[in-house]
């Protein structure tokens, strides 16, 4: 199978390139929704230019962890956290760390495609515009580059002024990825980006992720274990708010060290 070949290649590459830096270091992170202890003592180190997959049964805290990385989780009023998350060495919970700044560096793609009810062009230009880029020529450039980056330029280049909801779900999802790319982030967080898509769109997005990791660090939550196996370099297995195992993807899938990981991967539960 091709995927296996790819993974092998990656592993080799990894070994060679051991000088890679961490983008995120999570230290003893705890998170509560009110009384619900949703994340427990999370320690994770996420590397540059890799795809890190997060898997685990429903409700285990995958989305919560992801949303903590760009502090979106704080939109839930009852949330409390302890511990630290260093992004490029700086604690994102620091009092004077602006969330807007953090989120400008860290893009996010959501489970359900969520383009704005605007034209395709305006969707992509939204980010640059709110950050003060007004020059039409520069915006045009950014839009094209981002759409190309999300492998959807050819499909939409003649309909940039149409509403983003007039295209298919799979295309919408790539528009959302393009929208995230438009502000040239450092990291892209993806929360089950293909779970609402058909198999063909899924394939396209998976290929795109492989492509993107050349320039970005990607963290992807997925409930599809095959997907994790196919596209990620490292995999973290969450259960009940804890990280049970975190390792190279092929290690996790071929030779997990924890019984629960094995049970989960073999479909014993979840």
């Amino acid at each position: 199978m091709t995927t296996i070949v790819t993974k092998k290649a990656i592993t080799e590459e990894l070994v060679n390139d051991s000088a890679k830096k961490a983008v995120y270091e999570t230290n003893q992170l705890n998170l509560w929704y009110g009384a619900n202890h949703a994340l427990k003592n999370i320690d994770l180190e996420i590397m540059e230019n890799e795809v890190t997959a997060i898997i685990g049964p429903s409700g285990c805290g995958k989305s919560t962890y992801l949303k903590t990385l760009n502090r979106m989780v704080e939109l839930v009023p009852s949330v409390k956290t302890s511990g630290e998350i260093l992004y490029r060495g700086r604690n994102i919970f620091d009092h004077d760390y602006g969330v807007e700044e953090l989120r400008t560096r860290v893009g996010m793609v959501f489970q359900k495609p969520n383009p704005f009810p605007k034209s395709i062009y305006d969707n992509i230009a939204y980010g640059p515009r709110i950050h003060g880029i007004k020059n039409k020529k520069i915006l045009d450039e950014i839009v094209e580059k981002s759409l190309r980056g999300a492998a959807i330029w050819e499909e939409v280049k003649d309909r940039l002024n149409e509403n983003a909801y007039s295209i298919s779900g799979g295309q919408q999802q790539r528009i959302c990825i393009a929208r995230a790319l438009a502000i040239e982030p450092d990291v892209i967080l993806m929360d089950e980006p293909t779970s609402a898509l058909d198999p063909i769109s899924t394939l396209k997005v998976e290929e795109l992720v492989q492509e993107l990791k050349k320039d970005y660090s990607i963290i992807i939550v997925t409930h599809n274990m095959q997907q994790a196996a196919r596209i990620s370099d490292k995999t973290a297995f969450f259960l009940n708010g804890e990280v049970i195992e975190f390792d190279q993807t092929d290690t996790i899938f071929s030779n997990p060290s924890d019984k629960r990981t094995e049970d989960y991967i073999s479909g014993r539960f979840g």
Partner: protein
Amino acid sequence: MRYIEQQAVVKRMNGRLIANSIFKYIFLAATLVALVALIILLYRIVSQGMGHLSIEFLTNFASRFPEKAGIKAALVGSLWLMLVVAPTSIILGVGSAIYLEEYAKQNRITTFIRMNISNLAGVPSVVFGLLGLTIFVRAMALGNSILAAGFTMSLLILPVIVVASQEAIRSVPGELRDASFGMGATKWQTIVKIILPAAIPGILTGSILALSRAIGETAPLIVIGVPVIIQFLPAGVMDTFTALPMQIYDWSSRPQPEFQNVAAAGIMVLMAVLLFMNSIAVIIRNKFDKRY
């Protein structure tokens, strides 16, 4: 042993099906009562007022002669009233809704404001008239001007606009908000660029419906003391004026029977204005119905 005998079930089935269809028609009939009432009401008013409706009716001032009586002052007065009510109530209503939906923390003050708005919606309009009379007409010495009546009406429909706007804002999918925040947009940017544009159809629809309520309200105007014998058009918001429902009320309470027909014609004009406003609301609603 079996408790449910198929035979018994089949036997009972007939009775259940008959009850089902009888009640279906009872419920349908009840629904149609509303429809029939509306048709009778409209038919009655049109058949009474049609003879009086003419261009002159729209361009004449009120008159002691039924055949010369026109609705110009009232129609223009109602439009002036809207000129005050629309901006006042929409700014206050949408502002409140944004605050409650986007900024308010879940605390006692917020709960109090919410509760207060829903209670305010249930206060009879005649009581708003008393408020307007005391505060705007007397205390603020605005007299029975367009401004005084407009402020009173604005407060009267404020709760409706707040609630409609809240619903419109709430119905903007959370994912859009998340997407905007996820790009590093600030709260106000997200509100202005994403939430309000998406919510505007709902807000407009609700506001237009609320405004059409304001156009038809009579009781507060009576309490404020809006006059009816007026032979001129107002030139500014501090002028006295009369409004459609006041004029209709006056005509309907005149002793000469012909004035009943004039009143019916006045009602037709009022209903036409309302129909116009409602169609705009419906058009907006349909046009923007399914977008996400």
